């Protein structure tokens, strides 16, 4: 594929390793980020009123009343089943399910997040190892390059939600249950960005760098280990960021056909089933927090690793 590195959620964040610089950056970015968040909240509130107003008007009409603007405001911002819950409702729900529940409770969002994260991390691990292995094969074997790549692309056009239940059933029939089926679905989504990034990365050493290895008559393994692999690390990290986000989506998707009994996917679904939009939004935000956390974590590892390798300038 092409040279520009994959854009990861989080791509474009700086690579500075210096803590001081980091702090400076964060505080420097805080102003604009805060402003955008405030603007989003304002839009959110406006949308809450706008989207929920219909229901208030309908209710008023059913009761043969007229609804004034005050009624609409009051009626839209605290509905039990809003079309769009107001930010403070979501915040309250998050507070109730994160802070006020013991983390082992089934009503604790932290517990559900942990369930999802454990599947995500397992799947991400499998996907990463698989992706790197495939990439190494593709780079070293022309037959693999030509035959696997087009099908890897095709595999990603298959709607995962459609085959997830089948994967679960098939695994079930061979006795695999619990964490693993979810992890496999999550691996299916995360291996692709890793393959693409690693193939580009392993091919990134230029002809001169490869020639140097040839003048030493280095073996393939030595070339891989001492040249291709270190050279591919920046690409690897960029793809890992995409991959980990994809893994999380995979784990959530995988939770639906496993009975959706626990995990953020289950919360999304049961919220959706009972029309509890507040619960959906809380689970959604929690999922996004998890993704941000994972991507941030990889970014940190990236800074440390590349910093140690002198690649972070």
């Amino acid at each position, binding site marked *: 594929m092409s040279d520009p590195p994959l854009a990861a959620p989080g791509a474009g964040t700086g690579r500075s390793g210096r803590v001081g610089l980091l702090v400076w950056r964060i505080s420097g970015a805080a102003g604009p980020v805060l402003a955008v968040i405030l603007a989003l909240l304002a839009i959110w509130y406006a949308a809450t009123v706008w989207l929920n107003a219909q229901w208030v008007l309908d209710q008023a009409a059913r009761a043969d009343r007229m609804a004034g603007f005050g009624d609409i405001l009051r009626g839209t911002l605290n509905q039990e089943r809003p079309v769009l819950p107001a930010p403070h409702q979501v915040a309250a729900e998050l507070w109730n399910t994160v802070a006020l529940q013991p983390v082992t409770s089934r009503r604790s969002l932290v517990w559900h997040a942990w369930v999802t994260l454990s599947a995500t991390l397992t799947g991400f691990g499998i996907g990463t190892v698989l992706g790197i292995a495939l990439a190494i094969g593709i780079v070293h074997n022309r037959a693999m390059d030509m035959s696997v790549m087009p099908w890897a692309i095709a595999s990603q056009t298959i709607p995962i939600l459609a085959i997830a239940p089948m994967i679960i059933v098939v695994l079930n029939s061979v006795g695999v249950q619990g964490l693993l089926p979810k992890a496999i679905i999550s691996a299916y989504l995360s291996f692709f960005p890793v393959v693409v990034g690693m193939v580009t990365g392993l091919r990134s050493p230029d002809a*001169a*760098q490869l*020639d*140097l*290895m*040839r*003048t*030493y*008559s*280095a073996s393939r393994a*030595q070339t891989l280990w*001492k*040249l291709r692999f*270190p*050279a591919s*690390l920046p690409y690897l990290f960029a793809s890992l960021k995409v991959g980990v986000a994809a893994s999380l989506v995979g784990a959530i998707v995988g939770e639906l056909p496993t009975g959706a009994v626990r995990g953020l996917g289950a919360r999304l679904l049961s919220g959706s089933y009972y029309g509890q939009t507040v619960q959906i939004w809380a689970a959604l935000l929690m999922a996004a927090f998890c993704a941000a956390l994972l991507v941030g974590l990889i970014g940190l590892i990236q800074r440390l690793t590349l910093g140690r*390798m*002198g*690649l972070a*300038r």
Partner: protein
Amino acid sequence: MSLDIRAGDFVSFIGPSGCGKTTFLRVIAGLEEATGGSVSVNGMTPDEARRARAYGYVFQAAGLYPWRTIGRNVKLPLEIMGFDRAEQDRRMRDVLRLVELEGFERKYPWQLSGGMQQRASIARALAFDAALLLMDEPFGALDEIVRDRLNEQLLDLWARTGKTICFVTHSIPEAVYLSTRIVVMSPRPGRIADVIDSPLPRERPLDIRDSAAFIEVAHRVREGLRAGMGDDV
């Protein structure tokens, strides 16, 4: 096209851009196949010589691996060739002293100036002590002053170790100053236009460049180049 390089020679290749100097060096190194004719390096085919690790190659650009410190860049060939730890360290220190880079082994390439990087890459080629050195415009990117200094050091090294050196350049003074023989090449098809055996003594102070003998040789090289040129650029 045939050319006889004696052990202990310092041979320079000079010629217009695209005439095949780099290609020629790469064929000697077994990095590329000759299109015709045959090359032998001390009785081996280039490919055998490459496998036997019979030469050190300095590329046109420094080509240090950016994720390795200077010290570990120099150790790279030693690791690959399986030298033991202590020996790796000893040799690394030795060659870095040789190119006046002691104390920089912990730095990364990008923390050094271009000239220092180029010297580190020369140290890397010297580390495993091959009898043949192939150098492709190693000083091309440097300014005149630094270049002069490195030229002096290279001559010194050559005199002390008795290595055979093949050296590509596009600077006439550099070629004349360094070489025992100068191969002048002409473009399309890449041919040898002239082979000049230098009358200069082996011992060469920098101001030999203002001597009449030097200017005479330089003139001959320039003529050889111009003759091969036609109105090609």
